[in-house]
């Protein structure tokens, strides 16, 4: 028997031990994660729905009740409960049942991971009147300022998203500008130290607004109670 054969005979059981340990523990860990996921799924879903509801009333200042709508085959219709369509329009109404505005969910790539947010559109003002980040993993202390920074939030108190005369496109695209240089109502004043995250928010809003504002404005009557 050559030396390599001898070495292999000694080595073989060793590598089997390693494979056994890694694969076995990997399988066990996978099972553990799946079990936890299954067990917490319903509770997490209910929690998220509650957070979403709170966010809707926050991005549409003055709203107290809501209805959910979605677009199916080009038609806006009111829906109840769960549906397959992910894109939903949350219409908020004030105490008198008057339409305050429509909240939309938008998502896109941030600096670290997908950023999910909710913004409120007021048809009366032709502007975005509120924005809240629902989920993000942006850098703590820098990128996460998109959620908390008061000056950045001010961008969304009245962000112009009015449509052009044909009603097909935004009159002015929502654009990112460097901190402190905002001059027009359709510009978003960035955060120093969180440029990529603020640009990401701008892009998400721009994409979502340019796709949805024409739909909302065309079907505005359907959203009224």
């Amino acid at each position, binding site marked *: 028997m050559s030396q390599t054969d001898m070495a292999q005979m000694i080595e073989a059981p*060793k590598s089997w*031990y*390693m494979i*056994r*340990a*890694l694969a*076995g*523990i*990997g399988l066990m*860990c996978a099972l*553990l*994660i799946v079990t*936890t*996921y299954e067990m*917490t799924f319903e*509770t*997490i879903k209910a*929690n*998220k729905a*509650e*957070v979403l509801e709170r966010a809707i009333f926050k991005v549409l200042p003055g709203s107290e009740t809501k209805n959910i709508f979605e677009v199916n085959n080009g038609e806006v219709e009111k829906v109840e409960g769960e549906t397959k369509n992910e894109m939903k329009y949350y219409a908020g109404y004030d105490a008198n049942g008057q339409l305050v505005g429509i909240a939309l969910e938008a998502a896109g790539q941030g600096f*670290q991971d997908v950023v999910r947010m909710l913004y409120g559109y007021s048809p009366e003002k032709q502007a975005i009147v509120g924005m809240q980040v629902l*989920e*993000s*993993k*942006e*850098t*703590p*202390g820098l990128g*996460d300022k998109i959620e908390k920074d008061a000056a950045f939030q001010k961008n969304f108190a009245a962000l112009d998203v009015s449509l052009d005369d044909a009603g097909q496109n935004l009159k002015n695209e929502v654009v990112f500008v460097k901190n402190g240089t905002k001059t027009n109502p359709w510009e978003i004043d960035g955060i120093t130290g969180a440029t990529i995250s603020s640009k990401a928010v701008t892009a998400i809003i721009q994409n979502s607004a340019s796709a949805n504002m024409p739909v909302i404005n065309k079907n505005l009557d359907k959203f009224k109670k």
Partner: protein
Amino acid sequence: MNEPNKTFDATTFVKGLWKENPVFVQVLGMCPTLAVTNSATNGLAMGLATAFVLVMSSMLVSMLRNFIPKQVRIATFILIIATFVTVAEYLIQAISIDIHKALGAFISLIVVNCIILGRAEAFASKNTVGKSIIDAAGMGAGFTFALLCLGVVREILGSGTLFGLQVLGQGFEPWVLMILPGGGFFTLGAWLLLFNYMKERKAAKMQEVVA
């Protein structure tokens, strides 16, 4: 593998809380310590999440210590730790989305918290399950205690509240610096100063007794 020492007593637990406190004495896990302690609630939640991962992974590492070949031990430890971090993340989301949001990326970062891998490598892989759990619980409690110490000071001075309740009068102007990252360093520095002062005073007393 060496035959593990099976005897343990109160010091197995208490050493993590005080004499070998992971933050104040070992100065480990500084990233979450400085980052999420801007309020007492966040500090407590982060401490408990870390303690949970620490206890569970120490238990599993200790149980499997004779099954894991030493060549792949770090890989398996990280696998086990990452699993419990994922489990903790789901549990926190089920308990409160707001806490999950406040802790943000730091929950996932528990994976690389050196206290956990440190205890797995230095203690759990060489000791019995019972002893490892007690050691991990002590270290976890010590970490939670330290984070709470920082969180309480920073929240009172930085926002004038404690666990969200107003404790300082309306006339108090919050020191905003304290809830910013800089405040974390100041507070940690002050606590380390206090701990080292107490340690030195004790050592001096001991010397007096000997002399």
